[in-house]
C-alpha cells in the first residue's frame, strides 16, 4: 500500500457560527454549523503536484486552513503522515507541513537570507541560532528557488515575483514533506506565473515533496497538475469534492459544470474559457489552419457569428499567395470581393459594410 503524506477521512469543512451566540440564557446544545463541503476523501502522496480549483467562495481557503490545522474540521479528520493534525503539537505540524500564504510580508528591514532562515524556526533552539546544517539547508533552499542573486537584499525592495519565490524558499527551508500554497500565482505576470509553477513542479518531482496549490489559473493547472482537487463541482450548497487527473475532469464535464456562467463557456478543446458568442450577424469564413482560427476569433470578438464554409452570404475568404496572406471580403451575393492585407483592416471593412447595410 502506498504511504500517503496527507489523507482526509470523511472530512467536512465549514464554520461553527453558533458558538458565540450561546449566551447563558440562550443555550443551544448544537451550535449551528455552515458546512461548505463534506465527505471529503483526499489522498496526497510523495512527488505529487495538486492544483486546488474552485470558483470564488467555494471554500478553497477554508480547505487549505483545515488541512494545515489552523481551522478545526466540522467532522472527520485530516491525517498528516498518519497522525491527526488536530492532536499534533504546532511544532510537530510545522515539521510536516509548510505554508505559503497570500498575505504580503511587509517587514522591509529583513534580508531575504534572514527571512528564509526563519523557515528553520521549528528546528532551532530557544534563541533561534542556526547550526551549520541549518545554514546548508537555508542556502540550498535559496539556490533551488534561484533567489541567491538577491539573498542580501531587503524584502521591501523585491518585486512581487521575487518575493513569492522567497516565500517559497522559506517553505523549502522549513523542510516539510508537504507544502501548501494559497494562490501563489496571484498578482504575478505570465512569465512569473509560469516560473513559479515550473519551480513547484520541479520541487515535487525532484525532491519528492507533495505540493498543493490553490489557483485560478485553469490552463496552467491543466498543464502542470498531476491531479486536480475541484471544489463543489455540482454547484450545490454543500457537496463532496472531486479529485481526478486534469484530463478526465475535462472529459467528464466537471470543470465545465463548476465554472460555466452566463456569457462564458468552457472550451473543452483548449481547456480555457471563452466569451460565449450568441446571436450576432452571420459571416461566412473560408480558410484553414491557424489564420482561419484567429480570423474567427477576431470576428467573434467583434460580435459576429462565424459560419464555416458559407459562401452564399457575405463572407471572408483567406488566400495565401507567394507567402503573403490576404483576406477577401465579399459583402453579399454577386458583390465584388475586396482585398485586404491585414486582419485589422478586414475588421474595419466588415463593420463599415455592416453599418451601410443598416442605413
Amino acid at each position, binding site marked *: 500500500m502506498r504511504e500517503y503524506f496527507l489523507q482526509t477521512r470523511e472530512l467536512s469543512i465549514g464554520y461553527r457560527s453558533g458558538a458565540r451566540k450561546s449566551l447563558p440564557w440562550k443555550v443551544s446544545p448544537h451550535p449551528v454549523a455552515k458546512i461548505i463541503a463534506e465527505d471529503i476523501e483526499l489522498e496526497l502522496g510523495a512527488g505529487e503536484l495538486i492544483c486546488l480549483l474552485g470558483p470564488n467562495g467555494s471554500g478553497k481557503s477554508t480547505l487549505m486552513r483545515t488541512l*494545515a490545522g*489552523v481551522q478545526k474540521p466540522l467532522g472527520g479528520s485530516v491525517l498528516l503522515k498518519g497522525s491527526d493534525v488536530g492532536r499534533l*503539537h*504546532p*511544532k*510537530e*505540524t*510545522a*515539521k510536516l*507541513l*509548510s*505554508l505559503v*500564504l497570500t*498575505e504580503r*510580508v*511587509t*517587514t*522591509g*528591514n*529583513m*534580508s531575504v*537570507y*534572514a*527571512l528564509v*532562515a*526563519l*523557515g528553520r*524556526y*521549528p528546528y*532551532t533552539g*530557544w*534563541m*533561534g*541560532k*542556526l*547550526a*551549520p546544517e541549518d*545554514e546548508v539547508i537555508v*542556502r540550498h533552499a535559496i539556490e533551488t528557488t534561484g533567489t*541567491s*542573486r538577491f*539573498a*542580501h537584499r*531587503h524584502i*521591501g*525592495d523585491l518585486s512581487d515575483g521575487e518575493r513569492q519565490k522567497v516565500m517559497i524558499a522559506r517553505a523549502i527551508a*522549513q523542510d516539510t514533506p508537504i507544502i501548501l500554497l494559497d494562490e501563489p500565482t496571484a498578482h504575478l505576470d505570465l512569465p512569473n506565473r509560469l516560473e513559479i509553477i515550473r519551480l513547484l513542479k520541479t520541487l515535487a518531482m525532484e525532491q519528492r515533496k507533495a505540493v498543493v496549490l490553490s489557483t485560478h489559473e485553469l490552463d496552467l493547472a491543466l498543464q502542470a497538475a498531476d491531479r486536480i482537487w475541484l471544489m463543489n463541482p455540482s454547484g450545490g450548497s454543500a457537496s463532496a469534492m472531486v479529485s481526478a487527473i486534469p484530463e478526465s475532469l475535462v472529459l467528464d464535464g466537471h470543470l465545465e459544470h463548476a465554472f460555466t456562467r452566463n456569457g462564458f463557456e468552457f472550451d473543452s478543446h483548449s481547456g480555457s474559457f471563452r466569451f460565449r458568442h450568441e446571436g450576432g450577424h452571420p459571416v461566412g469564413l473560408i480558410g484553414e489552419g491557424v489564420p482561419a482560427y484567429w480570423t474567427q476569433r477576431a470576428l467573434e470578438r467583434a460580435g459576429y457569428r462565424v459560419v464555416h464554409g458559407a459562401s452564399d452570404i457575405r463572407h471572408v475568404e483567406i488566400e495565401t499567395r507567394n507567402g503573403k496572406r490576404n483576406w477577401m471580403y465579399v459583402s453579399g451575393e454577386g458583390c465584388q470581393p475586396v482585398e485586404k492585407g491585414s486582419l485589422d483592416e478586414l475588421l474595419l471593412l466588415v463593420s463599415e459594410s455592416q453599418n451601410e447595410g443598416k442605413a
Partner: protein
Amino acid sequence: MAIASSQPNSPAHPWPSLVPKTGMIVTLLFVLLLLFMLDIALGSVHIPLKSVVAILFGNETGQVAWEKIVMTIRLPKALTAVIAGSALSVSGLQMQTLFRNPLAGPSVLGISAGASLGVAVVMLASGGAANAFAIRQLGLGGSWLIVLAATAGAMAVLLVVLGVAVRIRDNVVLLIVGIMVGNITVSIISIWQYFSAPEEIQDYLIWTFGSLGGVFGSQLAVLAGVVTVGLLISFSTSKPLNVLLLGENYARSLGMGTFSTRMFVILATSLLAGSVTGFCGPIGFIGIAVPHLARSILNTSDHRFLMPSSALMGAILMLACDIIAQMPGTQTTLPINAVTALIGSPVVIWVIVRQKNLRASFS
C-alpha cells in the same frame, strides 16, 4: 556567534551574514559609559571627571561634599536613567513588533494611563486636607505610596487588557482595546481633576512631568530587580518575535505558540513600563523612538540584536536627556519628560528621514 562564520561559497554572491555590525555593540557600550560619567559629573555643581571616577572606585578625593553628591544623588539618578531608558525601549520594541505598528510604545496598552490613574487616586482623592498634607510630607517622587499606587493602577489596567487578550485572538483588536482602555482611564483622571483643588492638581501635574531623581536605596534595588526580570523575559521572546514579523499566520504555521508569546510580551512590558512609570512618572518618547533608532542604525529586524542594542541606546538617550535636563552650569533643571520629547524627537526625525527605512520596516 557561529553565524558570523558564513563562508561565501560562490564568489559572485557571498552569503549575507545574519549578524549586523558587531562592532556597534562595543561602540554603544563605550558611549554609554562615557555619558554615565558625564551625567554624574555635570550639574549645578561641576565635578571633574577624574574625581567622579575616583569616587566611584571608592578612592579618597578629599572632597566630602562631592562624594556625598555623587553617591547619594547623582549615581542613583544616573542608574535610574540607565534602567528606565533600557526598560522603556525594550518594551517599546516588543509592542511595535507584537502590534505591527510603528507608533506603538509601552504606553499603548494603557499601562502608563493606568499608573497615572493610580497616582491620581492617591493625590486627588485622598479625602481630606490632612491626607493630602501627609502625602506631601512624604515627598513626591520618593514616596512608596505613589509607587505602589502607580503599580497597582498599571496592574489593574493590565488585567483588563489581559482578560481581553485571552478571549480575542486578533492583535489589532487588542491594540485598539488597549488604547481605548487608556482613553477611559485618562478621562476618569480629567473628571477627577475637574473636581479637585488646584494644589492637588499641581502635585499631580508635577508627577506627570517625570523625574529620574526620586529613586534611592531600596527603591532603586526594587526597580532594578523588576526591570532585570522584565528584560530577561523580553530577551527570551526574541525568537518568536522574529517570526511574528512575518505575520501571525506564518508564525503559527512555523509552530510558534501565539498565546504564550503574547502573554510573555504583555507580562514583560507591564513589568518594564509599569515599574518605570511607577518610580519615575510617565516618561514619553523613549519607548517609541529608540526601537526605530536601533533598526535604522543596525539595519536589521532580528530581535536577538535589536533587544540588546535598544536597551543600550535607550540608556544612552535617557542619560543624554538627563544631562540636558540638568542644564549644566545653571541652577535650574528641566522636567525630564519635556526634554525627552523636545530634544529626542528631532533627532529621531533626522535619523529616520535620512535612512528612509521606517516605512521599509513596517510596510
